[in-house]
């Protein structure tokens, strides 16, 4: 199965695809046979992995995050990191590839 790295689609196109009830043909499996109940449906073009983002220390946040904004908090070893849900949500953000406490992690919700 060849993955196509689409150029960034417009927001309205994404919304149409995301909410569409009509589905494109299923991906035909290649390589190892899939899990027997596994029948994925395509809603959007494949997104390139998210590997670029900023990391800010708490001191730099100030009022740019509301105290009541929801975050996912993770600690690994001595390191603590907050992932604001408002920055992780939506089909374009779904997964962020990060490293924390020298462990590679996928921040996802």
């Amino acid at each position, binding site marked *: *199965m060849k*993955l196509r790295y689409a150029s960034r689609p417009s927001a309205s196109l994404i919304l149409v695809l995301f909410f569409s009830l009509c589905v494109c043909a299923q*991906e035909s499996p290649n*390589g*190892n046979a*899939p*899990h027997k109940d*596994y029948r*994925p*449906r395509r*809603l*959007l*073009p*494949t*997104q*390139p*992995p*998210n*590997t670029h*983002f*900023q*990391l*800010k*220390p*708490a001191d730099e*946040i100030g009022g740019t*995050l*509301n*105290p*009541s*904004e*929801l*975050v996912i*908090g*993770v600690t*690994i070893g001595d*390191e*603590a*990191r*907050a*992932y*604001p*849900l*408002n*920055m992780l*949500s*939506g089909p*374009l*953000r*779904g*997964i*962020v*590839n*990060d490293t924390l406490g020298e*462990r*590679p*992690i*996928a*921040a*996802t919700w």
Partner: protein
Amino acid sequence: MYARDPNRRNLTLGVSGMVWNRNLVMYDAETKSQWSHLLGEAMQGSMRETQLEQIPSVMTTWKSWRSRHPQTTVLWLPRSSREYQLEFYRDPKKFVLGLADSNPPQAWHFEHLMQEPIQNEEVDEQPIVVTFDPDSVTARAFSRMVRGKTLDFERDARGFLDRQTRSLWDRISGRCVDGHYEGESLEPRLAMVSFRQTWITFHPETQFPNQNPQD
């Protein structure tokens, strides 16, 4: 929250644009295997049946997190939403805390946790405590075992106490802030906040310990 180094091989995960059972399918750039986000398992490709390790995490407010982790860093991207503030929980009945790794699945309604914020349980023969902080609407699950001993907890206005030593623990971090166990932290259990309806759809066999039957 997953570690992305199964079998010590670092993977770079992306959104495949596909869904399975209305749940996100991920892919890894290295092998192009497809992964169920819900199960954390590769469903297709050379990594099929490989399981990603889940990392404990907490869903809470920035204020609560920052006060407990003053040295925290913060992921920063332009916001894609404004929805996820405390008002997201304006109808707490809609939410449950589900244990990700129990068999059968166990969950606690937020509505119940608001009444009984500290729950001592045994799940799969392991003693756990479920905690709820109403100010930040934070729900967590921790092991009750500390240094080989099983503790029993009760509520306190400042957090929660173990009956054995009357030490004071923090509901959000699971850390002991005062008393015999000061500095000790309870081991978190893998638990997720979910819409009640979504959780029940994916885990219809869920048990709700000590709670009135719903649905």
